[in-house]
């Protein structure tokens, strides 16, 4: 490519020189030599800028540099041509006369090369900067996701430990069983932390551990219905997404009423999306006292947004005395 371009210019110059009255032979030598020399200077200029980039605030240096190179080039060209070309008596005077033109052409070419070089570097810098920014954003996003996943409620943990403490006195076997369940639950929380998505049945196993523990604490008031459709079990869901929603439902159900409550959890497919629905009772009367949708749900919404860039994947609604949270999980092939 570059060679063809270079040859094109050499022959153009040869042709122009021939028209100005030089013999073909002399014109060709002149054309090749002056263009070879100019090419060499362009290369020198690029090489120098490759190792040394003046800052943006002294852009003038680049032009002065190009000017210097052009002057140097013109002087060198004069001596080389004078030395190489000996035929033709009027050639030296022709050469001398054509020097200003040659100087201006070389200045233009070298300035152009410098400019191109500068723009190319600018683009490269911008690309690198963008890359860095993207990397930084990804890091922040990952950190935020990790933090959102890890919101284990200390309240839950300490109350569970307190239940174990109670069982240890009267029912040591049950205490041991609950320690086992709590350990498995915590281990699951840690293990799944670095995964993008898990199959729904895995998430259900994890959820069951949590529900078992809550039933020990609130068994006298808490009834839980789990109804997952068979074909949804192998579908994918981000890990540790269900448990906070169920936790929220249990908390609201238990603290909003004093009666026995039933929490229903179900899954089904609709519009090609995996749907998981959690229902809990709530009380209209004390409803105003509730702390909005609660931190639990807003952090779920944030997670879904970070993962899928969509804001419509969690729906909450109130129907009669039921608070219904529906998750819609896109399946990525």
């Amino acid at each position, binding site marked *: 490519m570059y060679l063809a371009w270079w040859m094109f210019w050499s022959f153009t110059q040869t042709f122009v020189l021939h028209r100005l009255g030089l013999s073909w032979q002399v014109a060709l030598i002149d054309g090749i030599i002056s263009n070879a020399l100019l090419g060499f200077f362009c290369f020198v200029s690029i090489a120098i800028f490759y190792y040394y980039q003046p800052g943006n605030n002294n852009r003038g240096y680049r032009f002065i540099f190009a000017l210097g190179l052009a002057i140097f080039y013109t002087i060198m060209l004069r001596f080389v041509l004078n030395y190489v070309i000996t035929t033709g008596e009027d050639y030296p005077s022709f050469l001398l006369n054509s020097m200003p033109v040659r100087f201006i052409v070389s200045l233009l070419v070298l300035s152009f090369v410098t400019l191109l070089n500068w723009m190319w570097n600018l683009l490269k810098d911008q690309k690198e900067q963008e890359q860095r920014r993207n990397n930084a954003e990804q890091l922040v996003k990952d950190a935020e996701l990790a933090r959102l996943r890890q919101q284990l409620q*200390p*309240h839950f*943990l*300490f*109350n569970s*430990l*307190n*239940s*174990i*403490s*109670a*069982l240890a*006195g*009267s029912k040591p076997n049950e205490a041991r069983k609950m320690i086992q369940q709590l350990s498995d639950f915590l281990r699951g929380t840690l293990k799944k932390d670095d995964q993008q998505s898990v199959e729904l049945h895995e998430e259900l196993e994890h959820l069951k551990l949590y529900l078992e523990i809550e039933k*020990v*604490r*609130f068994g*006298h008031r808490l009834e839980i219905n789990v109804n997952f459709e068979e074909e949804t079990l192998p579908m994918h869901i981000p890990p540790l997404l269900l448990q906070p929603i169920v936790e929220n439902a249990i908390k609201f159900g*238990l*603290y*909003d*009423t*004093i009666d026995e409550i039933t929490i229903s959890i179900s899954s089904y497919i609709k519009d090609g999306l995996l749907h998981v629905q959690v229902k809990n009772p709530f*009380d209209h*009367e*004390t409803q*105003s*006292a509730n*702390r909005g949708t609660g931190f639990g749900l807003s952090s779920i919404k944030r997670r879904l947004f970070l993962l899928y860039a969509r804001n419509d994947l969690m729906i909450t609604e109130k129907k009669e005395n039921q608070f219904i949270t529906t998750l819609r999980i896109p399946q990525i092939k």
Partner: protein
Amino acid sequence: MKIIVIDDEPLARLVVLEYIQSHQGLEVVAECNDGFQGVKAIIQHKPDLIFLDIQMPKINGFEMLELVDVMPAVIFTTAFDEYAIKAFESNAIDYLLKPFSKERFDLAIEKYKTKSVNGSLAEKNVQSLLETAAKQPDDKNRIVVKNGSDIRIVPVQDVMYIEAYDDYVKLFTKDTYYLKKKTMSYYEQVLDSSKFFRTHRSYIINLQELTKIEPLEKNTYIAILKNGKKIPLSRTGYTKLKETLGV
């Protein structure tokens, strides 16, 4: 000595019952699942000491205590509640963090015994604790009231105005009013000052209920609520109210 244990988790009550067994002369007269039962049991049994959980259904431990007229000594039990713990610490109230050991429990009983000899220090502490607790964020969007044995949870936006009434205040809603053993300055502090305004030494109004301000005599004004009720405005109240409303 009579004791009541109030906690919504049966196993949490079980721990307290078990630890109490080794203490001579302490008798558990009632166990309660929630604050409603708690209030009734306290009225019925007049206990010397109660163990009280904070996070409970419907009304929390603090709200329950607001409904109690004769305050027993209280030992709070909680698993994790940053605000409550801050409130306990600033009011020198004893509290047990779940799960707690037998030794820690015995220490709390010891402390209670020495304090109860010194008189009613506990009652005063509990009152100031309730004020601290009520000032915590996201609280006070509701007021728990008692009408005979009927306990109501009143959203603050339903309160139209508050009137001083001896040692009590009357909280007026659309249909009725409730008595609460609190001071005007307490409500002035805990209610959202952008929604409630103290017009007078004896009155706080819900700004949403205000419809107009009328001159009564020279330099005196009254505020008129949507239901036609006339509320006295003190001179400073009038100036401040104009500032608040930006007129």
